[in-house]
């Protein structure tokens, strides 16, 4: 059965106008713009790391170990004489990858579960809610630690662990959104026209829940980067010689008295990247919330 063209077109037009409005509000938000610039810089660093880095991040030179920042090594060298700036540049690849991939895992599993739970309700919903209650009983990073304990250390396992820890957040968020959206007139209309449930969820419900999902994902990437750096710091994340920021910080700590640059700069890099995502998330939340837009 074909869907009524006018209803679909109207929905698309509405979404297009909303998208333009969101972009306009985002552009006016100074914080969000600062966040976007910070993230753009990190993205450039990550993509062009081999071109931008003055040295190979794994090349050691014991004769130049623990040097302070200088013209030759702008952020100094580590205990093996490796260039800290190059390692931080390459580290942005790992942090961004962990943030993006782990959030994708959370989205791919959490969104469908939340949508089905909210849409169908009943026993499945009840079961899912209790399951989520159990997962939420573990503070996020603790759940990630539990998963790493089972899977073992390493970057890939950190991505999975952090992804798994974010599943309950998405499931709960999407369920809540679906519960309110499914009562809308256009969903009842689609149902009256005999459109299948799967199609209703994918074409009519989920696109209208996108706002909170996008906002949450932006914040979640920031959280994922912090959790992953935390795991790296504890020795449960990326292993040497990987230039992961958390692990670099942990190693640098041993030399805090003689070379504090080894802890200061990787930490600043984490802070700036997380701040960038948080600022963009704040901006998106404000731009996507019609109440806030009117009050401005």
């Amino acid at each position, binding site marked *: 059965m074909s869907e009524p063209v006018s209803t679909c077109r109207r929905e698309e037009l509405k979404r297009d106008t909303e998208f333009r409005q969101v972009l306009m509000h985002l552009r006016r938000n100074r914080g969000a713009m600062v966040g976007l610039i910070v993230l753009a810089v990190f993205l450039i660093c990550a993509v062009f790391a081999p071109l931008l880095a003055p040295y190979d991040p794994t090349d050691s030179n014991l004769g130049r170990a623990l040097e302070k920042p200088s013209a030759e090594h702008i952020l100094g060298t580590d205990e093996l004489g490796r260039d800290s700036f190059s390692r931080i540049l390459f580290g942005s690849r790992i942090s961004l990858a962990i943030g993006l991939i782990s959030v994708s895992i959370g989205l791919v599993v959490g969104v469908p579960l939340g949508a089905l739970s909210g849409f169908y309700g009943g026993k499945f919903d009840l079961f899912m809610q209790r*399951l989520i209650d159990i997962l939420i009983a*573990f*503070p996020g990073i603790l759940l990630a630690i539990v998963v790493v304990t089972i899977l073992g250390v390493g970057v890939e396992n950190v991505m999975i662990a952090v992804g798994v820890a974010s599943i309950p957040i998405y499931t709960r968020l999407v369920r809540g959104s679906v519960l309110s959206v499914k009562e809308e007139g256009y969903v009842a209309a689609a149902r009256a026209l005999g459109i299948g449930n799967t199609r209703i969820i994918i074409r009519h419900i989920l696109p209208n829940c996108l706002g909170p999902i996008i906002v949450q994902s932006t914040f979640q990437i920031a959280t994922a980067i912090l959790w992953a750096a935390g795991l790296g710091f504890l020795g449960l994340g990326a292993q040497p010689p990987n230039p992961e920021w958390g692990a670099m910080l942990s190693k640098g700590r041993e030399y805090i008295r003689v070379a504090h640059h080894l802890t200061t700069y990787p930490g600043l890099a984490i802070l700036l990247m997380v701040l960038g995502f948080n600022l963009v998330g704040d901006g998106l939340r404000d731009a996507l919330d019609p109440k806030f837009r009117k009050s401005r």
Partner: protein
Amino acid sequence: MLGYIFKRLMLAIPVLLGVSILVFAIIRFIPGDPARAIAGVHATPQHIEQVRREMLLDEGLHVQYYVYMSNLLQGDLGRSTFSRRPVVTELRERFPNTVILSLAAMFVATVVGMSAGIISATKRYSIFDYSSMVGALVGVAAPVFWLGIMFQLLFAVRLGWLPSGQMGTFKHLILPSLTLGLATAALIARITRSSMLDVLRQDYITTARSKGLAERVVTYKHALKNALIPVVTVMGLQFGTLLGGAVLVETVFSWPGIGRLMVESILRRDYPVVQGAVLLLAVTFVMINLLVDVIYAFLDPRISYGSKEAE
């Protein structure tokens, strides 16, 4: 109200059961032989066989879980493969230290966060408002372990004012609690500010002001109480973040708490202790959430305690 508390308690039971199943499963999910994992890396074949028999690993999972739960309810969580001491003893020694650290951090977070939030709201768009909100943004984004190391560098290594780690006097508690509490303080400051601003716009505040009440009385007596409701909720939810953060802060400051014990045990593959620590942290978190729900119900009379009151 009592009915509500009872209902909320009942809801916590399946969650706690679920948590116990997940913790029980940790050891069974690890690739390889669970008996070898529990017995430890250097265990003899005889010892591995003994563990297998004790844990009934040749029996069905339901039998194993039944035995695990029976032991758990009798306070038996097994023995550490590293120290050979009962896990319960290890946890009992370390848990109070984590509680002390978390409470001190929550105290720091509440005092710093609420003061900054209230001053920001009452002096909106002032330099204090801008700087404390920028500080809050940075505070939320800064990795807690890095913040701890920076504090150590400044206050212990450079200035020599405070000890850099370990547990001992009150001085030892200052840096870890400040480190752990600052991120939460940042969040509390933001919530307090926006909640206060919302309340200060309400009609009854205008009425109070038009009665000629002093601004201080309006702010602290009329506005603050209502503005605190969302703050209390956030504080409760933040306790989980604090417990998670404690794992990192305890490692930075060599604080002998549950978090550090857990990380050391993971690195040593001392799984019985890992299980015990995870279980204890999760149960504590569930209990705190329960307490927050009850406090929240006390604070906000609009919450319905059951169908009768709701009508």
